[in-house]
């Protein structure tokens, strides 16, 4: 037994293996080179008879060769198996369309509403909702809209025909005229009646205005109401600015500055229009912000003490802010939708883009 012999066996085995194309020949090869009666096996058996010097040099070589041949054998087996199948015949064209399975799409308004809800919920806000058909009391009177006052013209109203709902007010039952809610604000009072401050809540929903539709006006659209109330002094204008900046900063994923301008809503005092720094051009001026660097986004204010009184709270004890903004408008801005009527149009070519 010597080195030369090992090399010869290796060379012979590998050379024979290369030529093998079928399973049977490979089995014979295995018997010939790795089988119990093979030269290599007998040499391995003979190792114990070698001198310590030879053992040290030859034994690892023999083991190595065996290992190598076993590995080559496995590779050859795989190769032969692979060659045995008609892979081309089995081909599936993966560039062809898959088996159809419809994918549903949430309406863009719903998607946006979800995003907004998530942020507010992370900030500890409750989510409430309320009826779309409202009483005159909740939509106007309780919100400090005087009767027969031009403030009511600020919101063109769809009134319902006929009598109205009987509701309890100051212990008396009165018939209230019904209307399609013109804003989500009626839920301020509805929520206050059922809960005690401190609380913070948002109310998303569908609202209605009796105005003719065109590309930028809809009689039906979606809004958000946000109300936060605590004892006087704890929630103030500075709190509102903080909250609005936090919300929009999270929503747009970048720093947003809030600008408050004086305004008037019967149910808040002070009242603001609020603008956010334009997130599209970083206030450099673009078509969305009409070159002003600011986007008008909604109204807000500190809840009017008369509204708190209408909800049954003592005047002056509590204070907080309410703000509302249009989800539909936000969606138009975010997705660059130029015709507001698309939202209620039900065209699946529109829905499936979101």
């Amino acid at each position: 037994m010597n080195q030369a012999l090992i090399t010869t066996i290796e060379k012979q085995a590998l050379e024979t293996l290369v030529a093998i194309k079928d399973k049977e020949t490979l089995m014979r090869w295995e018997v010939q080179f790795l089988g119990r009666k093979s030269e290599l096996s007998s040499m391995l058996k003979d190792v114990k008879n070698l001198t310590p010097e030879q053992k040290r040099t030859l034994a690892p070589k023999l083991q190595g060769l065996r290992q190598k041949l076993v590995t080559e054998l496995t590779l050859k087996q795989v190769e032969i198996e692979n060659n045995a199948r008609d892979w081309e015949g089995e081909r599936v064209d993966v560039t062809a369309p898959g088996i159809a399975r419809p994918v549903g799409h949430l309406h863009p308004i719903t998607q946006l509403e979800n995003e907004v809800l998530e942020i507010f919920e992370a900030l500890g806000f409750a989510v409430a909702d309320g009826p779309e058909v409202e009483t005159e009391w909740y939509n106007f009177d309780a919100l400090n809209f005087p009767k027969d006052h031009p403030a009511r013209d600020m919101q063109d109203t769809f009134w319902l025909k006929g009598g109205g709902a009987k509701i309890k007010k100051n212990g008396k039952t009165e018939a209230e005229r019904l209307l399609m809610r013109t804003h989500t604000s009626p839920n301020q009072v509805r929520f206050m009646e059922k809960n005690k401050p401190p609380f913070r809540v948002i109310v998303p929903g569908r609202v209605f205005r009796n105005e003719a539709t065109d590309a930028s006006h809809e009689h039906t659209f979606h809004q958000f109401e946000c109300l936060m109330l605590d004892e006087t002094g704890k929630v103030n204008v500075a709190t509102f600015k903080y909250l609005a900046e936090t919300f929009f900063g999270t929503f747009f994923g970048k720093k947003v500055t809030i600008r408050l301008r004086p305004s008037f809503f019967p149910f808040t005092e002070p009242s603001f229009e609020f603008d956010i720094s334009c997130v599209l051009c970083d206030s450099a001026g673009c078509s969305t912000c009409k070159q002003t660097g600011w986007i008008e986004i909604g109204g807000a204010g500190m809840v009017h003490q008369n509204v708190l009184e209408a909800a049954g709270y003592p005047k002056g004890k509590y204070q907080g802010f309410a703000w509302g903004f249009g989800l539909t408008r936000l969606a138009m801005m975010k997705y660059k939708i130029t015709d507001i009527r698309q939202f209620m149009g039900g065209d699946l070519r529109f829905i499936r883009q979101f």
Partner: protein
Amino acid sequence: MRYSYNWLKELSGTKKSPDQIARLLMMHAFEVEEVLRYEHGLQDVVIGKVEGLEQHPNADRLRVAQVRVGRGDVRQVVCGAPNIALGQMVAVVLPGSTLPGGIEISEVKLRDVLSSGMICSARELGLGENHDGILVLPEDAPLGAYFAKYYGLDDTILDIKILPDRGGDALSHEGMAREIAALDGYAPRFTEKPKKNLKIPAYNRAPKVVIADKKISARYSGLCIKGVTVKESPLWLQARLLVLGYRPKNNIVDITNYLMLLSGQPIHAFDADKINEGLSIRRAKKNEKLTLLTDESIKLSAEDIVIADSKKALALAGVMGGASSAITEETENIFVEIAVFEASSIRKTKQKHGLMTDAAFRFERGVDMELATEVLPLASSLMIELAGGKLFGLRDIRNAKHVPHKVLLSEELVLAVLGVRVPLFEIVRLLALLGLKVKKKADKAVLEVTVPSRRPDLIDAWNLIEEIGRMRGYDKITPSAPVLPLTLPHEESGKKKEMLYKTKAVAFGFDEVMTYSFYGSKDIEAALLTEGDHAELESPLSPEYTYLRATLVPLLLRKAKENLRNFDTFTFFEYGSTFAFPIKGALKELKELAFVQVGKAKSEEQVVLSLKENVRAYLASLAIGEVTFSPLDEETSQIVKTFLHPTRGAEIRVHGVTVGYLGEIHPRIAKNFGLPENRVAVASFDSENLWHGRNTEKEFIPLQKFPYATRDITLWFPRTVMASDALEVVRTGGGELLKEAELFAIYEKEEEKSYSFHLAFGATDRTLTTEEMDVSFDTIVSLAKERFGGYIRY
């Protein structure tokens, strides 16, 4: 309202440009909607003097004038106006320009005489209708000056949105100028105005005024001026009105408009000779008639307030004058009314008759009853100055007393509301700028603020805090995070359900649509519903949106039809409010969840079964258990029978409670909505009932240790036996040992029908013997025979 920049500047003393004023107002007071130059089109018109005038050599009716338009600049102009005279100051347009009417002026020869320019008539300048001759300017008009500039037509308009709270003071140039002066940091001449008193002749010849109901007019005053001449207003007054979009009419009417734009006080002038005896301010009689200034005749009711004489109603108080007492060219004696009427009555009248006048707009917002005191002397002097005549009488009736309103304001509340500490001295300064009187109370941190009558919107401390906040600027408030207790949100909301319903539906391939909450008679008719079951809008935008939807289905079917233009198969859903009358007269708002599936044309698949599987899987994903689908029967509600194909629909029950329905739409409905037959299925749920069917209590059942033994069975039945019957037989017959039964094939042959099931038998504690399984199997077979005459075919 449109404001003239020139006028505001004159009144407020501001030095700011229109854009600067706009910015200032935007951030501190009002929304400025537009700032734009007034387009008068008279850039090339200058003031000239007729220095020479000769007869045209070749035309009898023309004359040749030498007009000086500047130092050393005399132009020869051919003119045909009969009223031209030597020494007149005139408006001359020079060659190379165009007049507002589109007349192009160039140097031309008129019958061989060169004419370089034109002397203009009032109409040619866009100043009224007069075209009888050239416009003759006053002698002191500055030679060579630009005509437009001199007459104040070179102006910028600020269109400012005045919200209802400030209608009382800001709908006037004086009010706006006061605001600008305050924001500029000084309010010089607004704080105290010298009071001019009217000199009344000893004998008061103004008509006697009787006010029937003190509530309808807080103050009624008027002037009687005799011997006026009704004519065109002077140019400066016409120009002021033109710039603000008012058409000059005559001096009397123009003054009333001018004073309203200046002060905010609506004024009405009557022809005093048309007033029969005294005036009475009263509610109109039922069906009383009045012909308005516009010659429109209206029928009145007790809601309206009228100014009447002894015979009839003369004017609709606070809204519009009447034709019979209007100022005409013949008018000699006038009665000028300066009054305040009850706001809500004016509003009702205005809305009922659709009369959107400037006067009504101001009265419904509330006019300061103290304003008349300032306006009376102004009106008197201006009328006499521009129309001549003499003051012959005055009436001034007060039915209410203005009590100075006092508000207490603490420094602490300012901090509490704004979230920023405003030093007391600054509070005092800001309020004083607005013309409020501020007094420190003994307790130094509390102020007593007296509000002038023109600001009825300042009622309580919060109103004052708003004034402080805006005057100071909200940008000076630094955002600050609140300190809040850790609390859980308050109540479970319907929104959570909505979100779950929607997100799960999308997971099953449904697209979400939103449709209007309203539909019209056409939709109701097509869906075979009745109008009487619907709530109705009082004044819908169009007939398409008259009724509140009682169900989502009709509009969803419309959308299905529309989408068929672009897709041949699709599924979608809507979740939304519907409005029904479960009890007579009481409208109930429900949340409906409705699905539509449109199947491919010429498909082997029954669309209803496809939707059923979608819905079943959807309900399972919502953890709604024990769902059964049962064929429509006599018990089925009318609306479901109307919508669904009679033998291809099902009522859906959860734990035996009906939660909705599903089925192919009725061929009649398909036809009405223009939809194909056999291809459209709908499903609809009452979302509240459905929610109650949720089973959220879950308990783990140990996994089966012993293998199930499986066997298939095919049972034949008469045709009428339904799948649910067969399944029931298999379940009951199989008893406890039957763990699973899956219906995998249905065949129909002549009058028979077969159902094939994969059955799995097992027990939790042992492997079943063949004998045990046979007993269950045989029980199934015998039960099938016993109940429905079924049999097994091997």
